[in-house]
């Protein structure tokens, strides 16, 4: 099953769709995923920040990504 990335807020606007399917083999870590996405979508690099969430938790760059993980790109939040 291909890895899918959920997109929110401005990242959805930048990519132009609400989810993004990764090529196989998918990036193996959060850091590799971010590198891949920033190369594909340079506008992501302009954001104040862009984090990756794995299963609803903020994930550090070295964290491994499993094929069943729920992955999302998290641009700067602005609740409240």
């Amino acid at each position, binding site marked *: 099953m291909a890895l899918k990335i*959920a997109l*929110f*807020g*401005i990242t959805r*606007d930048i990519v132009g769709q609400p989810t993004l399917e990764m090529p196989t083999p998918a990036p193996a870590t959060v850091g590799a995923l971010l590198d891949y996405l920033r190369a594909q979508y340079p506008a992501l690099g*302009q*954001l*104040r920040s862009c984090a990756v*969430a794995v299963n*609803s*938790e*903020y994930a550090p760059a070295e964290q491994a990504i499993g094929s069943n993980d*729920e992955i*999302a790109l*998290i*641009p*700067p*939040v*602005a*609740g*409240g």
Partner: protein
Amino acid sequence: MTPHLSITDQPIDVAAALAAVQTDAAGAVNSFIGTVRNQSGGRRVRRLHYESYDSMALTQLGHVVAQACERWPMLQEVAVVHRKGTLSLGDVAVVVAVATPHRAESFAACQFIIDTLKQVVTIWKREEYEDGTEWVAAHP
């Protein structure tokens, strides 16, 4: 203590959030209500759109409340309700309500929760002006 946390696309019932935290054991309730202002950074705002990654937002809200409970062990009740979808001027965007036995801690805990919510909870705000829209805080 189980906090009352929700993200809703319906108008927020502020009275219900306040009632949810009231208890005979806690004499102090502090609440923060964030409403839609008619201006932002000098631009006139017409409307707001909030988008939420609900499951993560609730997970992160739970972490925020847990941190607050560690810092203020006297914290007895917490309610946080955040609106999503399209909001008009004056609409309530967020309510945080906390109950403690003593006054000062109710202010401190409520302020900690709203301040930290704004840093970590996965909700995004798009402001609509006379002449366009913008995702708030997206760019440096």
